[in-house]
């Protein structure tokens, strides 16, 4: 039996090229381990203080185990597509990890776990460099921002551990500015 047959016989599993809408709450869950909308929205609020209303117009979808996408509307689930909306979050691991693009799109609303860098450090961060830096807040995934063009502008996500901010900017997204 090929791998394809295995996937085809078990409709409740994650299939590549197929996006499944996540359940509204944990009690409506039919696929083990799949996060609910409620858990996703609560996580953004708990970790970054981003208010739940921010995502009012969006539905959340899972493609591949744990990769969560945000789409600006309603569609019947599942959807066969290469992508739907924006990849926003990696779940099904101990510490959920936001994507660079989600941090940029919604990070301005964040009120905690945001580290603001000066211009030189911001340059090193977007080039993909890890750097030693003092930070009194939580360890783990932080939204990294700088002051730019009249306000705070989020750059992406950093992992703060042992006095070091590790840039999580994906290779293809890094720039020497």
């Amino acid at each position, binding site marked *: 039996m090929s791998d394809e047959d295995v996937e085809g016989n078990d409709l409740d599993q994650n299939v590549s090229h197929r996006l499944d809408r996540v359940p509204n709450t944990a009690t409506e869950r039919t696929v083990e381990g799949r996060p609910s909308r409620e858990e996703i929205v609560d996580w953004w609020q708990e970790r970054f203080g981003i208010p739940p209303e921010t995502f009012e117009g969006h539905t959340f979808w899972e493609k591949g185990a744990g990769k969560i996408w945000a789409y600006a509307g309603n569609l019947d689930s599942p959807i066969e597509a290469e992508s739907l909306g924006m990849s926003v979050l990696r779940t099904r691991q101990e510490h959920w990890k936001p994507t660079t693009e989600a941090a940029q799109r919604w990070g301005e609303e964040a009120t905690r776990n945001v580290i603001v860098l000066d211009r030189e450090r911001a340059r090193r961060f977007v080039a993909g460099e890890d750097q030693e830096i003092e930070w009194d807040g939580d360890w783990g995934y932080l939204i990294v921002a700088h002051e730019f063009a*009249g306000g705070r502008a989020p750059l992406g996500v950093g992992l703060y551990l042992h006095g070091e901010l590790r840039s999580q900017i994906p290779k293809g997204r890094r720039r020497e500015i």
Partner: protein
Amino acid sequence: MDVLERYEPLVDDPEAFYETCRRPLPTTVRANPIKAPVERVRRALDDEGVAWTASEWNPHVMTVETDFPGNTWANFHGWIHGQEEVSALPPVVVDPRPGERVFDACAAPGGKTTQLAALMDDEGLVVANDSNLGRLSALRSNAERLGVTNVAVTNRDARRFSLDPFGSEPFDRALVDAPCSCEGTVRKNPEVIDEWSQSHVEHVAGLQKGILRRAVQATKEGGVVVYSTCTFAPEENEAVLDHVLEAEDCRILPIDTDLETRPGVTEWDGEEYDPQVADAVRIYPHHNDTGGFFCAKLEVGG
């Protein structure tokens, strides 16, 4: 003889046409209101010391004084996207509204797709399709950097595109920015001139007709379908429209733009086309200091 001379009978000032085609294009970007209001984008460019001039017909399109707009903070933040000035015309002609369903049949690498999304305030659905899997990764990364969340990306043959995965409802609007011979991009890619061939024109014209027909079929009655290319070849422009006007229930509407344009041609190489094709617009490089372009607006149903 190079292929541009083929179009001499269509051009009002051949010397100016050839001279402009030999010069490189100005560098232009489109401000992306999904990520930042245009005022903040302008301030960002000012703060980075990048001089800019807004285009007269579209305040989001700006000529910038840098060869590397990709290496700016504004670009990293997804506030701007490098996009040729004329390629910003088709989405404006599509004129999508927030909440609508829009089909972008040949979407990669996504400049026009993301502009459609921005015109819709990132609400509704843009189905961004491309048959070339390699080019889809550029489309996806551009859409993500620009913060777009209302786009579904598909990898199908647009000539046989099925509505089934999206609730079977027809689209409100569609854009067919068709694969073509691309002489209009000569200022950016001079090699297109040497690569031109009559046999490719014939092959790609068949493809264009198939894609445009399917887009008309997949759009609701009263909906709008926009056809665009970056070629001067009437075989790939007016002849394609002529074919689709004959085969499908649709008509051509005039296009209202402040860009300087010329009407579609109704005769070429012994062929005569439906007189409606004169409502399509031809854009020659020497009129607006841009690339060359062709754009037509169709309405589905009588």
